[in-house]
C-alpha cells in the first residue's frame, strides 16, 4: 500500500509559502530548469531549490525505516545516482515534462476545508466502502462545511447524520470497520471525542492486537481541535496529548490545504486507525494545490524552511506563528530551520534526526499544554536518540497548563505567540 503513496514534501511545501514572503539574503542556489516544478510562479525560487537538495530526497523507498543514526538499511541506498530517476514530488508529472508544463495547468486554488472535502470525495468515489458519520455531516453539510454536498451525492447511509452520542457512534464506526467498511468519524470538535475515549483506546487501538491480527480497524477519526478565537475552555482542547499513548493508532496533524488533502487520502487508505487533527482557525487558509491526484506519507514530516542555526519543530497552527517569527528572525540575521512534524504518532525521527545533526539545537513550539503534550514526548524522544548531537538542552514552548480562558487578552497569553518564539530563539542561539 505504501507504494501508492508518493513522497512529496519538498517542492510543494516550498510552494505553500505562498502566503508569506521572506527575503532571504544568502544561499540562493541555482538549479537547472528541469528541477523546477510548475507552481513556482508565485513563490520565491530559493525555497524550491533549497528544498530539493534535502536529505529526504534520498528516501525513495516503498516503506521507510526510521533509523536514529540516519543510515538507511541496505537495499535502500541513498547515493546520488538514484536522485534523477524517481519522482520525489507528490505531483505525478514527470521531471522531463516539468519544463514544458510550467505555463500550463498550474493547479487550482482552494480553502483548507475544501481541500479536505476534495480528498474525501475522491476517496469516496474510489472505494464504495468509505463512509462518513458524525453530527450534522449530512443534510447540514458539516459544521465546518467539510462534508457539504456529499449527502446529496452519496446518500444518507454513506454520509450519516448521527445523534449526539459520540461514544456509541464512534463504537459503531469501529464495529463497522471490523467487517471491512472504512468509516470516517467526524467529531464536531475534537474535545467531544473525549466521550469516545474508551472506544478509541480499547477498541480502535487494541483490537488488532488482542484478536491476534484477525481484525483490522481502518477507521479515520477527524475533527477540529486546538485553541480558537475565544471559544472557551471546553471547546479549545488539544486532544493529541491525551491520545498519544494509545498503542495501535496513528496521529497526524494537517496545516495547509496541500497536506490536508494528502493526509486525508492517506488516512483513508491506511489500514490502521488514524486520528487526523485539524485546527479550527485553519479552515479558511487558501492555497493552490495540484490538479492531479496525490497522496502524502502519513509518517513523514514536512521541511518548511531550511536553515543552519537551529531547528524549530512545530505542527498545525503553531507553524504559522513560527513562520511569522521566522520572518523577524531572518531580518535579524538568524537562519532557523522549520519543520512541520505532521506525524504526531509516530514521530518522523529520520527527518528530525537529520536536522538535529545539522543544526545541533532544537526548539519545539506546540499548542499542547506543557504537561504531557506532544512537545514533552518529542523532547524525550530526541534526547534519547540524538543526545550526542545536541549542543544545548531542547527548548519547548507550549501553552500554559490552564483551561483556555474566554477573555481575548488572556487567551492570547495561553498560547505561544511569535514574539515569544523570537525571544526564545535569540536566547537559544546566543
Amino acid at each position, binding site marked *: 500500500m505504501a507504494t501508492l503513496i508518493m513522497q512529496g514534501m519538498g517542492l510543494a511545501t516550498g510552494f505553500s509559502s505562498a502566503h508569506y514572503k521572506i527575503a532571504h539574503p544568502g544561499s540562493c542556489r541555482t538549479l537547472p530548469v528541469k528541477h523546477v516544478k510548475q507552481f513556482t510562479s508565485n513563490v520565491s525560487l530559493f525555497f524550491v531549490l533549497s528544498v530539493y537538495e534535502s536529505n529526504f530526497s534520498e528516501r525513495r523507498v516503498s516503506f521507510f525505516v526510521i533509523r536514529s543514526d540516519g543510515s538507511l538499511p541496505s537495499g535502500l541506498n541513498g547515493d546520488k545516482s538514484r536522485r534523477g530517476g524517481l519522482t520525489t514530488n507528490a505531483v505525478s508529472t514527470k521531471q522531463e515534462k516539468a519544463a514544458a508544463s510550467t505555463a500550463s495547468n498550474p493547479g487550482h486554488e482552494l480553502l483548507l476545508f475544501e481541500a479536505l472535502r476534495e480528498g474525501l470525495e475522491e476517496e469516496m468515489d474510489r472505494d464504495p466502502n468509505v463512509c462518513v458519520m458524525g453530527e450534522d455531516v449530512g443534510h447540514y453539510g458539516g459544521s465546518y462545511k467539510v462534508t457539504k454536498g456529499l449527502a446529496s451525492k452519496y446518500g444518507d447511509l454513506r454520509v450519516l447524520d448521527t445523534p449526539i452520542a459520540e461514544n456509541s457512534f464512534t463504537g459503531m464506526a469501529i464495529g463497522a470497520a471490523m467487517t471491512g467498511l472504512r468509516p470516517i468519524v467526524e467529531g464536531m470538535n475534537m474535545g467531544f471525542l473525549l466521550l469516545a475515549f474508551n472506544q478509541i483506546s480499547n477498541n480502535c487501538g487494541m483490537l488488532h492486537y*488482542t484478536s491476534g491480527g484477525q481484525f483490522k480497524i481502518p477507521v479515520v477519526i477527524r475533527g477540529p481541535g486546538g485553541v480558537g478565537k475565544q471559544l472557551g475552555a471546553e471547546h479549545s482542547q488539544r486532544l493529541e496529548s491525551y491520545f498519544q499513548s494509545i498503542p495501535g493508532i496513528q496521529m497526524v496533524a494537517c496545516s495547509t490545504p496541500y497536506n490536508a488533502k494528502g493526509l486525508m487520502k492517506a488516512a483513508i487508505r491506511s489500514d490502521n486507525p488514524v486520528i487526523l487533527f485539524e485546527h479550527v482557525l485553519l479552515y479558511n487558509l487558501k492555497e493552490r494545490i495540484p490538479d492531479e491526484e496525490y497522496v502524502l506519507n502519513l509518517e513523514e514530516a514536512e521541511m518548511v524552511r531550511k536553515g543552519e542555526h537551529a531547528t524549530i519543530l512545530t505542527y498545525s497552527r503553531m507553524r504559522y506563528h513560527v513562520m511569522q517569527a521566522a520572518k523577524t528572525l531572518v531580518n535579524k540575521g538568524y537562519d532557523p530551520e522549520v519543520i512541520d512534524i505532521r506525524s504526531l504518532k509516530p514521530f518522523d525521527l529520520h527527518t528530525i534526526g537529520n536536522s538535529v545533526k545539522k543544526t545541533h539545537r532544537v526548539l519545539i513550539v506546540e499548542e499542547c499544554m506543557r504537561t504531557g503534550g506532544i512537545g514533552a514526548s518529542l523532547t524525550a524522544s530526541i534526547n534519547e536518540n540524538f543526545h550526542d548531537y545536541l549542543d544545548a538542552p531542547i527548548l519547548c514552548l507550549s501553552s500554559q497548563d490552564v483551561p483556555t480562558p474566554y477573555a481575548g487578552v488572556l487567551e492570547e497569553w495561553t498560547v505561544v505567540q511569535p514574539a515569544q518564539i523570537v525571544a526564545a530563539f535569540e536566547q537559544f542561539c546566543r
Partner: protein
Amino acid sequence: MAQLTNSRRATTTLLKPISAALFSTRHLSTETMTVETSLPFIPHNIDHPPSQTVETTPQELLAFFRDMAVMRRMEIAADTLYKSRLIRGFCHLYDGQEAVAVGMEAATTRKDAIITAYRDHCLYLTRGGTLFEAFSELMGRKDGCSKGKGGSMHFYNKPERFYGGHGIVGAQVPLGCGLAFAQKYSKEDNVTFVLYGDGASNQGQLFEALNMAALWTLPAILVCENNKYGMGTAGWRASKSSTYYKKGDYVPGLKVDGMDALAVKQACKFAKDHALKNGPIILEMDTYRYHGHSMSDPGSTYRTRDEISGIRQERDPIERIRKVILSHNLATEKELKDTEKEARKEVDEAVAKAKDSPWPDPSELFTNVYVKDLGLEVFGVDRKKIRTVLP
C-alpha cells in the same frame, strides 16, 4: 480437533466412533418433531409473540445435549486450570448459561454476526472455535485463537463472524450496532446478535446505540443475558426497573426462559425475522450462572448456596434436554451418559494438548500493533540495541 456438533452442518463426521455407532443403530432422524416449552414468551410491543411449540429434530436435540455437555466440561476444566494457576488474570465462566449459546447458534447461520462481552468461551465454541485453541488462549500459548495476546476476554473468530470478546462492560453494544450497520450498508440479509448482561443494561452507550439502531432500522438483536447479578450486585439493587426486555421503550422486547435451549432457539428465530424487517428488538434471556462473576469471585457472598443448588436442580439446561430426549425415547440413559463421558474425554485431551503448546515468541510482543504499514524500529529498554522492526 474437538468441535461442536451443529445441526446445521453434517454432524455424523464429528461424532466419536462409539456413540456414532450407538446413535446410528437408533432411528436418529431429521424428521421434525415438536416440543412444548414450559414457559410462555412475554412480549413487549409485540402483537404476536412466538408460539410455545418448537420445531426440532432428534438430531438437533442430541446435538444440543452433546454441545452443552462439552461446554459444561470446558468451563469446569477452566476452573481447575485457574486454580492450578495455569490460567491467570480474569476468567469468567459460562456454566449454567449454555442454553443461550446453543439455542442461538441453532437459529442462526454463520453469516449472522455475534458479539458479546467477556463471558465468551462457549460462544466461541459454538461459532466454530476449537477446544484446543480456546484452552491455549486461556493459558496464553501461541496456538491460542488470539496468539496468546488476548486472553480469556478476547476470543474472536473472524471467518465465522464471531466478533468477540470485550472487556469493558457495554462497549460491545455500539460495536454490535456497527456490525448491523455494515450489514445494512452492504445490503446483506443477515442480522447481528449483540449480547450483554443485566449489569450492562444501565450503560448509556447501550441506549445511544439502541436509539441509532431504531432510527436507521438496523438488523440488530440485543440479547440481555440476565443472570440476576452484575458481579456482586443483584439486579434489583442496580436497576430501578428489572424488566430488561421493556427497557427499550419503543423497541419491541421479548422475555425468554434462557435455561431452555429450545425456547432460546424459537426466540432467536423470531427475532431474526423481526430484525430483518423492522429493526432492533431486545431479547431478555432469563438465565443463571453457577460460578461467581469470575474466578476471583467466590459467588457466595451475595447469594445463598441454596439458591444455586435450587436452580441446578430445577432449571439446569442440560437436565432439561436430557428429560426431553428421554421422554421422547430418542436415546437411552446409558447413551447420554456415554456422551457426557466422551465430552469429558475430549476436553481433557484438548487441555493436555494445550498444556504442551509453546509460549509465544518474544518478537510477538511487537506484531499486530499496526497492519503492515510502518517500518518502525523499536528499541529495547536500554535504547541502544534495535529489538525489532514493527511490521
